[in-house]
């Protein structure tokens, strides 16, 4: 069993609080993505699992063992670093073998070690590079060596700290898929840190959104996308991001906003007259409706579709439009229709979701 549990975990660096009272359950064989902007505490949380940071208060449990006081070198975890952290003086073979020779006790014999290294290299397609040094490899190959070094020891938990951020866009997309395949094949727990919500959405079986040291929402990617728990999550997840506009709740099923009125299918749990922020994703808007009036400010052509950027009251909204829809021009005044089933309502003061 390799579940990881945070129970009221905090981490302070002097006066600054990196992780604030975080409680999180990561199940066995989960692909958990810790997602958030830089400085949100996600990497610190990961490093506490690794044992590279001490825990200020609370408990970190791996499997059934509280690991707060267990040294990093004695935890059964492997980590892939953003910089890959390969040993530049060792060949790829020695790099991959390193976790197998590092511990003196319980060390495998050399035949078994060679077999494990060959297996790991095979999984990651590194067979031809075993005798090279990291300096002679491309970024993508180095990243694979780091992964091979992680899988060779068959750890209980894999930790990955932004492992794709040093790759170019194309390789990143490809490696994303490969990592998910690797996770399926290995059937172990992955904990993956990223600031890239696309990575989180595409790879995670669950995502945990963090900001300012605090956990905001945990759930399956689709669930988080469809029902963001607060304004931060709503704005952070989705590309282009969710359109937001402050207004006032008329009834529990409609809000008046500058430039119109937004219908809400899921009734809000606050009383009419409350100050709310309404959120609608670009794909839940259509041109030619009569809910909100907008002025076209700019149009982005993406080939298969268009992003129409318009001014709605004081805000900028993005409307997704098919590539073959009637063309719009900058300056046009248009009416936008809102799909009431997909309207998100947040309490403006507390930022929490209220519908």
């Amino acid at each position, binding site marked *: 069993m390799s579940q990881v549990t945070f129970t009221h975990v905090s981490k302070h660096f002097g006066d600054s609080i990196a992780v604030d009272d975080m409680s999180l359950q990561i199940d066995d064989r989960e692909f958990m993505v810790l997602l958030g902007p830089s400085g949100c505490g996600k990497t610190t949380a990961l490093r506490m699992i*690794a044992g590279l940071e001490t825990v200020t208060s609370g408990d970190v449990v791996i499997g059934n063992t509280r690991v707060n006081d267990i040294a990093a*070198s004695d935890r059964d975890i492997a980590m892939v670093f*953003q*910089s890959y*952290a390969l040993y530049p*003086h060792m060949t790829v073979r020695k790099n991959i073998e390193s*976790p197998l020779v*590092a511990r003196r006790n319980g060390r495998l014999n050399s035949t078994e070690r060679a077999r494990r290294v060959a297996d790991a290299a095979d999984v990651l397609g590194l067979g031809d590079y075993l005798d090279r040094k990291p*300096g002679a490899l491309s970024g993508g190959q180095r990243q694979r060596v780091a992964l091979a*070094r992680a899988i060779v020891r068959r750890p209980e938990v894999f930790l990955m700290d932004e492992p794709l951020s040093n790759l170019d866009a194309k390789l990143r997309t490809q490696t994303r898929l490969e990592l998910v395949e690797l996770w399926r094949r290995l059937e172990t727990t992955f904990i993956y840190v990223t600031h890239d919500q696309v990575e989180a959405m595409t790879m995670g079986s669950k995502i945990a959104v963090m900001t300012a040291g605090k956990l905001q929402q945990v759930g399956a990617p689709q669930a988080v996308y469809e029902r963001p728990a607060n304004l931060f999550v709503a704005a952070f997840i989705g590309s282009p991001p969710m359109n937001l506009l402050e207004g006032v709740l008329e009834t529990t099923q409609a809000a008046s906003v500058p430039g119109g009125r937004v219908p809400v299918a899921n009734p809000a749990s606050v009383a009419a007259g409350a100050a709310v922020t309404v959120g609608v994703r670009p794909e839940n808007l259509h041109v030619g409706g009569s809910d909100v009036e907008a002025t076209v400010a700019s149009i982005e052509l993406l080939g298969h579709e268009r992003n129409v950027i318009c001014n709605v009251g004081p805000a900028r909204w993005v409307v997704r439009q098919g590539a073959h829809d009637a063309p719009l021009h900058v300056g046009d005044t248009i009416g936008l229709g809102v799909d009431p089933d997909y309207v998100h309502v947040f309490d403006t003061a507390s930022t929490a979701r209220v519908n």
Partner: protein
Amino acid sequence: MAVVAARSRKAKEALMAYAMLAPLLAVFAVFAYYPFYRLFQFALFQKFSNSDEERFVGFQGIWDNLSSDEFTSGLWTTLKFMLYTVPAGLVLGVLLATAAHRRLKGIKIFQTIFSSTIASSVAVSSVVFLTLINRQSGFFQNVEFLNLERTGSALRGVALSSVWQNIGLTFIIVLAGMQAIPEEINEAATLDGYGPIRRFFRVTVPMISPTLLFLAVVLVVQALQAYAQIELLTLGGPQGSTETLLYKITELQSRTDLQTGASFALGLFVLTLLISVGQFVMLNRRVHYDN
């Protein structure tokens, strides 16, 4: 036309290159090439103090000097001095740097203390050492192992003083080498399961190996050129037991016989060259340079 233009541009570039090299070449010519040429001249001709007459002695004359007991004993002392100072200096520098390479409050104070000898001259540190080792009142007065007044131990005493003198340099350079190792590599090694000692030998030492090679060369050259500490601590004695080659050469220069000293200097030059080349060839195979 294009060929001519290219040629003239090349000529211009070459001219520019020489112009930029000129100051350095001038300094080298005055302080290195010309003295070296004169050294050869001194070594090839025997001159007598009572007359202006010079006699060509040639390479045979140089060889006669280099095969003398005087030269071989100096050579032996020099090599011993090198063996006493270089490994000890390297190991101590690495140990101190390891101790000081950590994030602790006030560690900068220790780093400053450890590197302080770099700012004190050989003369100062030799005098301090002389006080420490003084047979009547020094802190180490009863340490026979370092007794400067006995032939068996005097060279060790001088060597210890030199190790101490060089420790600041070694410390600073090794510390810089260690600080250049990315923290993530140490963390990766920790997660791989290396304990601190194995991490040191498997990761730290290989990664600072270029630094160690550089220091080994510098310390060897320092050992071969040691003079002031010998002059201040023992004057080459007792009974010539601390007379290194360089010390003998300077002693010989003060007499009228320039030919012997010049021959010895050539011998020392060849020795330095051989050791340095040997070090690079041998160590380069085992040194890792990041590419």
